[in-house]
């Protein structure tokens, strides 16, 4: 990882003053130990007219991986996440920012013992970062550096020239040109390099907020993207620790199959509310479910595929429901739901009414038997069509509650979502989206096979042309006397 800082000068104000400001002699190449490898400072050119300082950080990728290594089985949590194949040795990431602050500490703090008059003087600067990881692309780079007065050149780097169809990488070659005091420029780099990198920090310190405030002095407060900068700067810390605790097993499975863990662990997206806009639809759906459950006289209710637990929370607010069981296959979803419900701090009486379980509708489950009602809200569309019969049997054949509510998107309504491109599903994990006829056909067949009656209720505005955004089926178990008609022999076996 590499960057250069250049300035120009005249005989009176030689460019080599840069050496005083950086506190590094232009005629020497110097090396410094930093926490992630050796940093080298040298000057490819150093004349009165032009002076360029280069910072080269030799990252030790082996040490990077082995750093977090614990005892025995494959090391500590983050060792499994870290890879020897890593862009850290090449790209100007947060590690370079750390090196920058270590090597140019006095310059960053705006002190220059030898030539104090140089500090604070705007210099004509040209900063070049050949490989800058930039999540958000060249556009965001411009938005972050532009408002600070820089002339920004950000050129995308191709992923692989052999495979042009792969497009650009997430790196840009960055050149900043403008006049600014060196200290301020360095502090901006110190904050914005990791912000653009936006990946896990390998350096975790408790005083990150203080550091940000100090480095942001004089420019961050007025920055139009202040919120994004703060969020990204501080985000890495949180996610690192949490991921380490929550989903290592899944990380390893993804690893074993050469996929990104996000492709598998996508049951909940904590950053965005996965419920489609406008948000009130989700509220309407929960209300419709609650109303239907009350009408059915159910007290003990299963929320199958409870996700982040919004429905569980809504049902707990209604004392009609004496027991609410949230079931999901995703451990992450259950963790989020538990946090949302504040299960650990909940009063005993309320806590007695709620249970969260890991379960899967691909299997029958004895624990789910004997409930008054089960809700599958926005669940079936996350199941591959060819595995739906197993889900059907687990719910209607095995758990067999008196009432089953199923909601699912009505694909016809998708044309009414302005933001949804034609032909796209509402969520990346939707394996299918049905129109009203398809859903009703399925529901009626299920009801017939398992001895239920079924009725349909629209949820959300019922568009005269395309129907409601969400469709709901209410299944009611036929009582035993009714069911004898479908099972005319009514005989008991063996």
């Amino acid at each position, binding site marked *: 990882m590499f960057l250069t800082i250049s300035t120009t000068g005249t005989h009176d104000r030689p460019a080599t003053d840069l050496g005083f400001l950086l506190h590094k002699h232009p005629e020497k190449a110097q090396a410094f130990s930093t926490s992630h490898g050796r940093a080298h400072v040298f000057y*490819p050119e150093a004349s009165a007219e032009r002076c360029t300082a280069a910072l080269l950080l030799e990252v030790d990728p082996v040490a990077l991986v082995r750093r977090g290594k614990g005892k025995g089985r494959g090391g500590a949590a983050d060792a499994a996440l870290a890879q020897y194949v890593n862009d850290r040795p090449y790209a100007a990431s947060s590690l370079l920012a750390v090196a920058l602050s270590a090597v140019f500490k006095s310059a960053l703090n705006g002190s220059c013992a030898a030539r104090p008059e140089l500090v604070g003087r705007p210099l004509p600067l040209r900063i070049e970062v050949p490989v800058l990881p930039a999540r958000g692309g060249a556009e965001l780079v411009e938005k972050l550096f532009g408002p600070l007065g820089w002339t920004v050149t950000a050129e995308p780097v191709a*992923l692989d020239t052999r495979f042009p169809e792969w497009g650009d990488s997430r790196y840009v070659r960055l050149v900043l040109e403008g006049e600014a005091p060196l200290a301020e420029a360095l502090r901006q780099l110190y904050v914005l390099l990791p912000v653009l990198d936006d990946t896990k920090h390998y350096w975790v310190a408790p005083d990150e907020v203080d550091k940000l405030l100090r480095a942001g002095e004089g420019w961050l407060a007025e920055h139009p993207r202040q919120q994004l900068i703060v969020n990204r700067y501080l985000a890495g810390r949180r996610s690192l620790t949490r991921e380490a605790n929550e989903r290592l097993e899944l990380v390893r499975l993804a690893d074993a*199959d*050469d996929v990104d863990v996000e492709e598998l662990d996508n049951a909940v997206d904590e950053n965005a509310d996965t419920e489609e806009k406008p948000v009130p639809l989700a509220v309407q759906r929960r209300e419709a479910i609650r109303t239907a459950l009350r009408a059915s006289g159910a007290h003990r209710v299963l929320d199958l595929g409870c996700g982040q637990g919004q429905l569980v929370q809504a049902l707990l607010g209604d004392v009609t429901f004496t027991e609410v069981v949230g079931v999901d296959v995703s451990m992450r979803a259950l963790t989020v739901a538990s946090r949302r419900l504040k299960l650990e701090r909940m009063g005993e009486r309320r806590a007695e009414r709620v249970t969260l379980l890991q379960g899967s509708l691909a299997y029958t*489950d004895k624990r789910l038997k004997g409930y008054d009602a089960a809700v599958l809200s926005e669940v079936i569309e996350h199941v591959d069509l060819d595995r739906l019969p197993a889900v059907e049997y687990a719910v209607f054949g095995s758990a067999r509650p008196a009432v089953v509510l199923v909601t699912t998107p009505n694909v016809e309504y998708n044309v009414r979502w302005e933001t949804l491109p034609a032909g796209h599903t509402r969520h990346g994990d939707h394996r299918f989206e049905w129109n009203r006829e398809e859903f009703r056909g399925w529901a009626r067949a299920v009801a017939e096979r398992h001895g239920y009656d079924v009725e349909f209720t629209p949820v959300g505005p019922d568009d005269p042309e395309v129907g409601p955004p969400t469709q709901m089926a209410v299944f009611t178990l036929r009582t035993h006397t009714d069911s004898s008609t479908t099972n005319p022999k009514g005989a008991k076996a*063996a």
Partner: protein
Amino acid sequence: MSTSPENAAAPRELPVTDLALVVLVGASGSGKSSFARKHFKPTEVISSDFCRGLVSDDENDQSASRDAFDVLHYIAGKRLAAGRLTVVDATNVQQDSRKQLVQLARQHDVLPIAIVLDVPEEVCARRNAGRADRADMPRRVIERHTRELRRSLRHLEREGFRKVHVLRGVDEVERAVIRLEKRYNDLSHLTGPFDIIGDIHGCRSELDTLLGKLGYVDGAHPEGRRAVFVGDLVDRGPDSPGVLRRVMSMVRSGNALCVPGNHENKFGRYLKGRGVQHTHGLAETIAQMDGESEEFRTEVREFIDGLVSHYVLDEGKLVVCHAGLPEKYHGRTSGRVRSHALYGDTTGETDEFGLPVRYPWAEEYRGRAAVVYGHTPVPNATWLNNTICLDTGAVFGGKMTALRWPERELVDVPAEQVWYEPAKPLATEAPGGHEGRPLDLADVHGRRSVETRTVGRVTVREENAAAALEVMSRFAVDPRLLPYLPPTMAPTATSQAEGYLEHPAEAFAQYAADGVERVVCEEKHMGSRAVALVCRDEEVARERFGTEGVTGSLCTRTGRPFFSDRAVTEEILRRVRAAVDEAGLWAELDTQWLLLDAELLPWSLKAGGLLRSQYAAVGAASGAVFPAALAALEAATARGVDTGDLVERQRARATDAEAFTEAYRRYCWSTEGLDGVRLAPFQILAAQSRSLAGLGHDEQLALLDRMVEHDGSGLLQTTRRLYVDTGDPASVRAGVDWWLEMTGRGGEGMVVKPVRALARDGKGHLVQPGIKCRGREYLRIIYGPEYTRPDNLQRLRNRSLGHKRSLAIREYGLGLEALDRLAEGEPLWRVHEAVFAVLALESEPVDPRL
């Protein structure tokens, strides 16, 4: 109370069942302890005095009685649970104390037997007076004992004692002899051979056909085999009297044994004139009995009355009963055992057809004896945990099944017609239901152990099962189409050779040390592991795997489909099928489907996302940074700055980075539809009714070569290989050279496998089924571009392989288990249990770079 000299000589025989709780009853001083000493082994007798001593240091401390009896009951309970005759030496004159013992006997399903020593009071008093420790015992205590004993005598049988022996007077006590009797159900001395026949339900004609097929001529087998009927001879079918006549005559002549089914039990009660509902096919039997003589009815009644709930046969290796029996009930005698043997256990729930849900006792069975039973109609008889249900629903139009013992061969005949409509279909229509029942969460969830035949018990931890559940449920293909997942493979021991982290020399040495003489080196394909299930057609897939509209599956090492578009999968399967057709392997392997272990190429097909986000990104970053950095360094050097070895080092790093980019590029090529896609099969895992995991790799490759030769589509790719003798230095050198040449050209490396599959080392442990030796360049995309630098290599050599090797063996054992269970036609959940465990183990914490 005769004391005549003639009688004095004659012994008084007391029959005692060989597994029973014998309760001695008698006043203090009546001679119980002497009696017990005389007739039983010291360890069989537990005396209350002894237990009093144990808890209080004083055998006569009456205040310690309560604790003493706790101890006594505890010891007796342990003995009975272990199936040992137990004698309780205590006064037991009070009903209360006996009641507890009767309960204890029932708890362990053994017979309670009372032996009463009714000795005159004076005798007792005199004996006590003669014993120092009891000399002070007040006379009234003995008087009370005697009074209570007299009062008890009449009630003993009503209290639940199944045998009551009363010895009156000193004389009779003296003359008593214990005669041990075998239990009725204990026929362990009969060693067969047997032909055990499943539920018949009045299907006389099918029974005759089956007996004929088994070799019986007129109810007798020329080779002296003996038939064993599991019950449910009657009801529902066309000729229950005919079946009874046949079975009764075979039993009478000693050519058969028979245990009762619930239908006999009910029919028997009907014959005795009890009120029973004429449901479940009893009405048919009653109607058929109309023309039968009173004599025959009596004969049937007595036959049914005399049936014993279950039999323990063949030195305890075989238990036959109607509805199955957990091990703790084998050879036991109680109402509860009889009830379980006849009706099985139910959970108390009813299913969607309103029928009682049966408790799956066989799923938990771990007993030594094979349990052969009937009662629950199943589509096919299959072994499950050493139990097998032979009721294959002949009367419902299924088939009638017999098991040859000890051969364990199944013989069946199809039903001639549907004689009786079942209340519910033989199997539920749920996925997996065709094999008995659908998958249940309890089969996979939480901490579980899977028993395997090759590597013993493999334990899956809860958190690993949780992760596997998520992937299996949300991303995997239908479990019916996922009968196998490949195990992880350990790399070769770390090489110390300069410039190398892995080198084949260690792999050959490892196998030589394990006593494996001949190995095959198979080229490692530059793709992704794939498991392909290929059926001849949809019909075969439906028949064997219960699926609709597909002819198989093609999935990754975590069970995910390779292609989201099912049509693409089907096209690949079609091409493989065509090659199998052309090569004539269906007939040769006598199968309608094949399960293949293979590699799907290119890697970029599956791992495109990863390649771009991780590998290509590193390539792009390094490719862009070095020109700039080197130019700057060169400029500084040119103007006289001493940069030391920095330039040289950066040049070397740049070269490494280029090598890295070249390394990953070899795994990428563009594919258009299926053009450019290759499948390289390297093992046939299974075919109909058998696992082929035991077939040597030389034979495997020969079969696969023929498949590849006959592939007209260009899909299939051969696996290059070289055979090496681990004991021959020249051969080993050739192996190393082959690897050097292959990896030198950019190949991924090779896998070394024992030619003979399932090889074991000197201690009898399975050796690694394969050891991978990855190429020097390939490892750059594992360990990073600069891993070959001496200081990096030195540190990377410090890697620990133990856990990976152990994981590889455990997963291999689970995979073999899945294949064996599949071969034996075990139900889906049993196969899935093992497959799921492989996936769960894949989430164990182990260095992902190994």
